[in-house]
């Protein structure tokens, strides 16, 4: 299936008007990625709509984490890892030679599998870490952004009286929301979430899911998940990947109700994976 076909499918599924590529927040063009000699991604093309939630699903090792890490140039930080292709954010290629990877990461935030707050920093310092990296010193401004971000991550009410406590004193789910707040403090346009609930219990996971649904009003979200129910619950669009290839991409309801490809069907119905 060509890119155009995929796009048309997807548009048909959401019954919207046909849009041109520049209306997409993120356009992935012919991305190939390698770890050493092993090719992890094979010619991936994908368009991600602004202020939507897109889920990458697929069995372990299918390349979904690698793909999400290509969207903020994190993949290439791994020794021997290599990427080829284009990722357009608002029409500008983040792999262009003139673009500083550091700046890309400020626009495209990321939340990881395991909560990874900075252990020696307080809750508020954790949230402010990115601002301080950007040289913002104004204490009032920082306090304001910390509050905004914690509210955005639905953590404010729980921690408002203990902002100076270490970030590690929080529970796992709270730590993950702290990490989301830390990413939100940078006011990213795109937020990448790499299996953000895989280390959390069901209750904490459902809070994160709720948060994802509310966050999409402000930010474009791409989420990698092992959990198909989760993808079905939180995402507007779903991409199914297998062995480094994009097998099928479309509106979540369509992917889950009547997938085109047999492989997708089998994965969705739990026959492998």
């Amino acid at each position, binding site marked *: 299936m060509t890119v155009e076909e995929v796009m048309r499918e997807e548009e048909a599924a959401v019954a919207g008007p046909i849009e041109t590529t520049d209306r997409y927040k993120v356009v992935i063009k012919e991305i190939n990625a390698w770890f050493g000699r092993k090719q992890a991604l094979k010619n991936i093309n994908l368009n991600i709509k602004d202020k939507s939630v897109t889920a990458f699903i697929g069995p372990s090792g299918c390349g979904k984490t690698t793909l999400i890490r290509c969207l*903020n140039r*994190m993949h290439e*930080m791994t*020794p021997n890892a290599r990427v080829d292709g284009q990722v357009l954010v608002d029409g500008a290629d983040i792999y262009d030679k003139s673009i500083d990877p*550091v*700046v890309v*990461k*400020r626009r495209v*935030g*990321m939340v*990881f599998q*395991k909560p*990874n*707050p*900075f*252990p*020696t*920093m307080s809750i508020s310092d954790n949230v402010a*870490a*990115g601002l*301080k*990296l*950007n040289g913002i010193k104004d204490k009032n401004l920082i306090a304001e952004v910390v509050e905004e971000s914690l509210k955005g991550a639905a953590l404010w009410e729980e921690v408002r009286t203990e902002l100076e406590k*270490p970030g*590690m004193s929080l529970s796992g789910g709270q730590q993950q929301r702290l*990490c989301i707040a*830390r*990413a939100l403090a*940078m006011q990213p346009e795109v937020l990448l979430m790499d299996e953000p609930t895989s280390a959390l219990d069901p209750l904490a996971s459902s809070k994160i899911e709720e948060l994802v649904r509310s966050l999409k009003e402000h930010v474009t979200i791409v989420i990698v998940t092992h959990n198909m129910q989760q993808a079905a619950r939180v995402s507007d669009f779903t991409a199914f990947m297998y062995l480094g290839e994009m097998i099928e991409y479309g509106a979540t309801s369509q992917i889950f109700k009547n997938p085109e490809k047999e492989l997708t069907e089998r994965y969705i119905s739990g026959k492998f994976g």
Partner: protein
Amino acid sequence: MVCLVTFSVFRGSIQIFSYEGVIGFLTGTDWNAVEGRESFGALPYIVGTLASSAIAMVIGVPISLGIATFVSEMSPPRLAAPISFVIELLAAVPSIIYGLWALFVFRFWIRDLIEMPLYNAFHGSLPIFAKYPFGLDLFTAGIVLAIMIIPIISSICREVMRVVPNSQREAAYSLGATRWEAVRIAVFPYAKAGILGAAILGLGRAVGETILVTLVIGNVIGIAAIPTTLFSQSQTLSSLIANEFNEASSDLHLSALIGLGAVLLILTMIINIGARLLVRKMVKVPTGEKGRR
């Protein structure tokens, strides 16, 4: 074992402590073993020990941290392995080798390349550079001690930094940190306890180091051993013991030397306990998450 050593050292030094008094021995500056005119004071050597170790730390710790950071965080893997290998090799070199090399070769470099320029530039304005450098002095001892402890401190720091979880680095990168900023906000704070521990271990080595210091520090005794400039000759507790133990002329002289040993023992204990308290106060030990090894 520790108790046994401590007991022997203190029993050996009872004679001198009763002769000079504990305070008298600690604050005295004379050192005279001539019969009938005996007078023993440890103060100059305490000062010499602290001063030479301090110089070693000031020079050695930043360099070690730099090396460890480079090897663990910055250098390509192909370069990191050989550098680590060489550093570990250097850590295994006996101190007498460093000492001999310093005595016959390195002290001239220090004198001509570092001490003389400093002396020429500052001898009028800064008192610590006011003495005409000779090459065998406190400064040389400090630098050579630094060279001796750098391999130890840097290899421990490297290990400590390598076990910092990669997720910490990535957290920093994802906020738009450069490689160096990631080291600063994610790696150093996480590894702080270990880095301090490495520095303390290095300090312990520097304080107790004997033969290397003896060869290069100038070995003066009495009040002259209290360094007034960086380029003064001096003496440390352990170097004085090594220098005079063979020719201790009387029981009292011998007891005075053992007394120096007792002081050294207490000094190292104070440093260790103090350092431990410092670590406990400064560091909230990170929990969870495994390293990347």
